[in-house]
C-alpha cells in the first residue's frame, strides 16, 4: 500500500490510511463490505465504491437501520465495516450498537469518522466527545482510537482479522506519524512512546503526538515523563496503567473527548480501586462551545503547554 500523501509539513489525514487499507483488505477478502449512511465522501470510500460497487451498501440517512443491517450482514457471513460520522453512528444508533452488535457479539466493525471536535464549528450536536462513555461499558466491544496513519492502517487490518465487534474512532484532523523506532502493533496493548519515571502521560488518538512533544519539553525542565499511547480504551490495558501508577506515581490522561467516562474515566476507575495516585484528566468537561478545532484545543488546554502544566500539577499532588 502506498503511503498516504502528506497534507502539510508531514501531517496526514488518517481517513486516507483507513480507506486505502480497507480497499486492500476487500481485494483479498470478499467477505468485507462497507455500510454507509450517505457518507461515501466523508468516509473517503469513493474508491471502494468504484472497485466494489455491490459491496458498498448505502442505506441512506438512517443510522438505526444501518447498524441493524450490519448485524444482519454479519449473520449472513459478511464482515461489515460501518462508516459514518461518529456523532450520529454512536448517538443515534446507541441501542442498536448495544443490543444488535455488542450484546449479540456480531462480527461488525463500527467506524466513527470526524470524531471528537473535528466538526468544531458545527457545534455540540456534531461533536462526538461522548462516544467513549457510551461504548466503554458495552463489554464485548473493543474501542480503539489510532493515533496516526501507520497505526490506523494496523488497526483496520487487525479489526478485519479479529472475530468480534469493534468501534474504531477516527478523526479528520491531520496528525504526524509518531516517531517510534521498530514499531510493532500490539492489539489492545498500550504502546510505549517515551520512557520516564516522574509522571505518565496517557494519551489517545489526536493527542498522542502532543503528549510526546510535551515529554521532550519536560525533559528540558528535568522532568522524566513516560508517554503511553492508549489506543484501546476498552478493554483498558490495566497492566500498563498499574505499572505507570506504581513506577511513576502520577498520571495525566489526554483525550479529545469528554473527561467523564472516557480514557481519563477508565484510568481513574482502575487506579482508584487498585493503585490510588493523582490522575489529572485532560479533555472536555461537557458540552463545549462552537469553534474551530484549533481554537477548542487552545481554549481547553489541549496543547503542549497545557499538558506540561497538567504534568506538573499531577507531580505536585504526589504524596510525600
Amino acid at each position: 500500500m502506498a503511503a498516504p500523501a502528506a497534507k502539510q509539513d508531514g501531517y496526514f489525514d488518517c481517513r486516507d490510511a483507513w480507506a486505502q487499507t480497507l480497499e486492500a483488505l476487500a481485494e483479498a477478502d470478499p467477505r468485507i463490505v462497507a455500510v454507509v449512511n450517505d457518507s461515501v465522501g466523508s468516509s473517503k470510500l469513493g474508491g471502494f465504491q468504484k472497485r466494489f460497487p455491490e459491496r458498498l451498501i448505502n442505506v441512506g440517512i438512517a443510522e438505526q437501520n444501518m447498524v441493524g443491517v450490519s448485524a444482519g450482514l454479519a449473520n449472513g457471513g459478511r464482515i461489515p465495516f460501518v462508516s459514518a460520522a461518529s456523532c450520529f453512528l454512536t448517538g443515534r444508533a446507541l441501542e442498536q450498537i448495544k443490543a444488535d452488535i455488542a450484546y449479540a457479539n456480531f462480527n461488525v466493525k463500527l467506524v466513527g469518522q470526524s470524531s471528537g471536535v473535528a466538526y468544531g464549528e458545527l457545534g455540540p450536536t456534531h461533536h462526538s466527545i461522548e462516544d467513549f462513555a457510551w461504548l466503554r461499558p458495552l463489554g464485548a466491544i473493543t474501542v480503539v482510537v489510532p493515533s496516526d496513519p501507520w497505526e490506523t492502517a494496523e488497526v483496520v487490518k487487525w479489526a478485519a482479522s479479529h472475530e468480534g465487534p469493534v468501534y474504531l474512532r477516527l478523526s479528520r484532523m491531520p496528525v504526524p506519524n509518531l516517531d517510534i523506532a521498530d514499531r510493532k502493533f500490539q492489539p489492545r496493548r498500550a504502546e510505549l512512546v517515551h520512557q520516564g519515571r516522574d509522571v505518565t502521560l496517557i494519551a489517545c488518538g489526536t493527542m498522542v503526538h502532543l503528549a510526546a512533544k510535551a515529554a521532550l519539553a519536560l525533559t528540558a525542565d528535568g522532568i522524566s515523563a513516560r508517554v503511553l499511547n492508549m489506543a484501546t480504551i476498552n478493554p483498558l490495558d490495566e497492566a500498563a496503567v498499574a505499572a505507570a501508577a506504581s513506577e511513576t506515581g502520577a498520571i495525566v490522561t489526554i483525550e479529545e473527548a469528554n473527561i467523564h467516562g472516557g480514557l481519563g474515566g477508565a484510568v481513574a476507575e482502575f487506579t482508584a480501586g487498585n493503585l490510588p495516585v493523582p490522575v489529572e484528566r485532560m479533555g472536555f468537561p461537557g458540552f463545549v462551545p462552537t469553534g474551530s478545532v484549533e481554537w477548542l484545543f487552545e481554549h481547553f488546554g489541549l496543547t503542549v503547554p497545557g499538558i506540561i502544566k497538567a504534568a506538573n500539577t499531577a507531580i505536585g499532588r504526589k504524596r510525600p
Partner: protein
Amino acid sequence: MTMLNNDTVATIRDKALWMRRRAFRMVFDAQLGHPGGDFSAIDIIATLYFGVLRYDAKKPELAERDRFIMSKGHATGALYTALCAAGYYPEDWLSTYMQPSSRLNGHPNRNYLPGVETNTGPLGHGMPVALGIAIAGQLAKSEYRTFVLTGDGELQEGSNWEAAMSAGNRKLSNLTLIVDRNRLQQGMGTEETNGLDPLDDKFRAFGWHVEIVDGHDVQALLNVLGAAPGARSKPLCVIADTIKGKGVSFMENKASWHHGVPNAEQFDIAMKELV
C-alpha cells in the same frame, strides 16, 4: 432440512396446540411472560417452522438455512416452544425459563440459544437485521429466504420504516415481513394509541407486495408464506390478522394479557380449553 408431507396442515395444528399448552405452562411456572402476544403469533410461527422454513436443527449455523427473526422478542413463549419442538434443544430447557442464568432469557439471545438469529426485545430491531441478512443472501446469490415477525404496535418504532424504505428500494424479494396484526399493544388498542391503518397501503407505498391473511388459518398462511418469490421483484409483507390471547376464552382480545400471568385456576381453565 425439514420436508413437507401430506399432513402438513394437521401437523402444524398439532404443533401449535402443543406450543400453546407448553408456553402457558412456562409462563405459569415462571409467573412472568407475555402470553397474549405468544398466542396471537403461535399459528404463524408453527406454520413457519413446520411448513415453510428450511433448516437443520442439528446444524443451526448452516449457511443456506432460511432465517426467522422474532422481532417482537417479548413473545418468547411462541419462539422458545417452536425452537424446542423443531429440535434445537431438549424440552427440559423450557423449564428453566427466566430462572437465574437460564439460556431462556425474558428476551432471546443468539449466543445462549441455538436457532436464535439475533437478539431482540427492544422493539424495532428485527426489520433492519432481517434486511441485512437478505442483502447478504443477495450478495452471495444464495437461495435462502429471510422472514421477520413484528408486532403491529411495534411498527410505531421508526427504525422499521427506515428498513421498509430500504427493502422496497432494493427490491428484496427474498425478504418477508409478517405483521402480527392483533390490534392491541401493551396498554390499549393500536389505533387508539398511534394508529397504523391503512397499513397495507403504507407498505405498498414503500414498494412492497402486500397480502392480508387470517393469522390463525394455517392453510392460508402456508399459501402465502410457502410460495417461492418467483418472478416477484418486491419484498413481501404479510399482514396477519390475529387475536391476542387466541385459544383461551378469558384471554382473547384483552390488552391486560399482554404480560398478564395466570393463577392456578386460570391455568386449569386454559389447559381444559387447549385440547
